[in-house]
């Protein structure tokens, strides 16, 4: 059973890596030429192709690490809510956290590489906090209590360590439950989950400020932490659904029925609307008040850099709101694999683009492109899937001794 999954995944990985690598080379070359021809006048730091590479590594890693941790969040929420229906997809969500450790390492490494030429974070520029330097920026200097290298790195390590530790802990408890049975592991998992969710509530917001918001160093929005969480969360649910469908179609999840898909579809539908709600609240309030220090963020994305990001700004709403909203509207659609596939793939691509739109204008200004970025994303996808499917193969796809396993198998909506 397992071998098939792994072979499938490795096949996918090879294909993706091949395509990714090819595109990547082509893209890099293209970008290099463009830079060589002097197309972009004002950039500083690394050559554009390298800068694009570093930033797309950061972008894709933030996205995939977020989805990985959402797997654990999903499991934890289902524990504390005593949810019974979701047990048949629990192992899929658990497997997502296989990416957390490599993701954490990549995060640290890319951050370090980004420091060399200060490509990702403007606030890391030397002298920016020093009144005597010509780089001095009073607003950024005011933030130095939070945005300084040691504290930033410590925070990053702490967030990732917490996420990784609790993911492993929950996974271990679940595997032991498979072996030994009884409700003791379940009881313990509820406590572990509750503690994790409390810590995650704080760390996810702070991670969003650190990893994404501080790119646009001057800009601030209190909603931002929840905005990033909403994006990760809906992508995570879409990823769980998509994996469940692939596994079902390959014959590995005999107990997964259209009832479970229906519920996953409802969550995707609901949380796509939730994301839009958060998006709209943030946008509308900034647009309405029109304070320059806030609205600059949307100025850059709506018409800034010769309108480079304008289409993406609107496309973001279409693919992440209108499309899943319309596709998943009816009951039948939420129970049809083909409709769910369409919606999940749109959501996954859409939220990758959402992060693209959050990260690129502040770092690459008008110099971002798509070929390198998509290539990097596909390499990440391949690696992510390899680790995820490997973990998936390491345990029974059904947590056989979970107290709610019968409820989930007989679930009807």
């Amino acid at each position, binding site marked *: 059973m397992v071998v098939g999954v792994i072979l499938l995944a490795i096949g996918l990985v090879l294909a993706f890596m091949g395509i990714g690598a090819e595109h990547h080379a082509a893209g890099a070359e293209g970008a290099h030429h463009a830079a060589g021809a002097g197309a972009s006048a004002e950039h500083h730091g690394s050559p554009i192709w390298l800068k694009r590479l570093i930033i797309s590594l950061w972008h894709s890693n933030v996205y995939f690490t977020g989805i990985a941790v959402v797997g654990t969040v999903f499991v934890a929420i289902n524990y504390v809510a005593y949810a019974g229906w979701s047990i048949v997809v629990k192992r899929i969500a658990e497997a997502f956290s296989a990416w957390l450790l490599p993701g954490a390492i990549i995060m640290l490494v890319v951050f370090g590489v980004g420091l060399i030429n200060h490509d990702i974070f403007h606030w890391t520029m030397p002298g920016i906090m020093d009144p005597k330097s010509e780089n001095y920026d009073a607003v950024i200097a005011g*933030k130095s209590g939070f945005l300084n290298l040691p504290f930033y790195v410590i925070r990053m390590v702490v967030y990732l360590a917490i996420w990784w530790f609790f993911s492993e802990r929950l996974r271990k408890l679940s595997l032991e439950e498979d072996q030994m*049975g009884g409700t003791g592991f379940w009881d313990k998992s509820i406590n572990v989950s509750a503690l994790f969710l409390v810590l995650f509530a704080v760390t996810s917001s702070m991670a969003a400020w650190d990893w994404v918001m501080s790119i646009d160093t001057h800009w601030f929005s*209190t909603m931002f932490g929840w905005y990033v969480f909403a994006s990760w969360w809906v992508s995570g649910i879409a990823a769980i659904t998509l994996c469940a469908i692939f596994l079902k179609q390959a*014959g590995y999840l005999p107990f997964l029925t259209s009832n479970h898909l229906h519920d996953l579809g409802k969550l995707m539908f609901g949380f796509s*609307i939730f994301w839009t*709600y958060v998006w709209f609240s943030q946008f509308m*309030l900034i647009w309405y008040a029109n304070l320059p220090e806030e609205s600059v963020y949307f100025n850059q994305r709506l018409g800034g850099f010769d309108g480079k990001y304008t289409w993406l700004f609107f496309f973001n709403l279409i693919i992440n709101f209108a499309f899943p909203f319309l596709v998943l509207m009816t009951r039948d659609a939420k129970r049809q694999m083909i409709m769910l596939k369409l919606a999940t793939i749109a959501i996954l691509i859409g939220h990758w683009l959402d992060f693209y739109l959050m990260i690129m204008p502040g770092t690459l200004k008008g110099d971002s492109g798509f070929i390198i970025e998509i290539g990097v994303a596909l390499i990440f996808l391949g690696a992510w899937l390899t680790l995820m499917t490997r973990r998936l193969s390491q345990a029974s796809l059904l947590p056989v*001794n979970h107290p709610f*396993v019968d409820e989930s198998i*007989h679930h009807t909506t």
Partner: protein
Amino acid sequence: MQHVSPVRIPLVTNGKTYHDVTQDVCRQVEAKPNIRWMAALAVALFFLGIFFYSVYRTLWYGIGEWGLNKTVGWAWDITNFVWWVGIGHAGTLISAVLLLFRQKWRSSINRAAEAMTIFAVICAAMFPVLHMGRPWLAFWVLPLQNTYGSLWANFNSPLLWDVFAISTYFSVSLVFWYTGLVPDFATIRDRATGPIARRAYAVLSMGWKGGAKHWSRYETVSLILAGVSTPLVLSVHTIVSMDFATSVVPGWHTTIFPPYFVAGAIFSGFAMVLTLMLITRVVFKLEDYITLEHIALMNKIMMITGSIVGVAYITEFFIAWYSQVEFEQYAFINRATGPYWWAYASMMTCNVISPQLVWIRRVRYSIPATFILSIIVNIGMWFERFVIIVTSLHRDYLPSSWAMFSPSWIDIGIYVGTLGLFFTLFLLFAKFFPVINMAEVKTILKYGVDNGPTYGGPNTGAQQSTYRSTGVPASAPVNYDKHD
């Protein structure tokens, strides 16, 4: 067939039968009003009298009767308005959102919570209408053409959005509540002995016969209304928050406001539901329907929403510093350390720290502790609105116009008066309407009960070895039956 895990516990305790449910709920409606109810109603009517007196003073002498001044032109009234609207959130949340999340325990509390919602929204509506000064012109907020010229409702104003949001919310909540009441009214009608009761409940039950078609329509309408109310619940406090957040007042203009206000509203709403339910279950002897488990679950929701609000407080404070905008920074420093520090400290203690006691199992299963906690949260949420509203206004950009707000007796009278209005309505509801949804409780009566139809036997931890996956061929067609 649905399966219920043995780890789940019954929602209704003490082996009640279908007949017991009818008896236990109808008893209060059919019996003569008891002395405790009369005493409570008398107190509520006294406060309602205070309300009418304060309203009379406000309307006859004008808004000058209130404690507002030219710097703090919006304080007590809007605080109370937001507080009441917030309380009005839990009812529809319980009926709609918990229905969508299949939380079956909601059946015992949804009726009373929905009633509370409706009465709380009525109380809330008093404040903007009274603040108009000339409430007989309240229809001007509706987008009606008027005969005085080009005056027209300002669609750019979040206050106008409030009118739409809250009136829609009120109408839908009322319909939802009433739809649920119809089958129960029919039950009471069929049992009624007195001629007035029989006629009155006959009218109220709208000719309900309990036929299969009736039930089918009832369920369809409930589901549609649940779907409609869910976005409505979120929209109401979102738009209330926009009354502040669309401005450029430091401390008000912050993007987290919409979801943070919604969480705060659910928080205060659940606190009020707990306050009311803890009294109702004892007075009406409904301990088997509103069990300790219900109380613990409501406590948990209160703690979660309280913590979300706590995260939002910290986020606001942090981002105010992080923004490096002088005015934002001052607004928050002033909140915490300025002349209203005590309001801020009360808010933080009541809303963020005290709900954390719920982590202790003994607290969340304790009736006295829960009752005290629910009152503390109600107070804390009032202070939250007061802090947000008054501290952001009282120190203007010009230090020469700095001022403090102190409520007048009329302000206080209107506020405690709305409490009188609220409890009058709630007591009348509790006496004449069934406080628990009998029809829905009957559907969950056997849930998880030992030897009930869904009981799976005790969990030995060693069962289920039959569920190893059997390895369906990769090309096996996947069946999805639309009708299951």
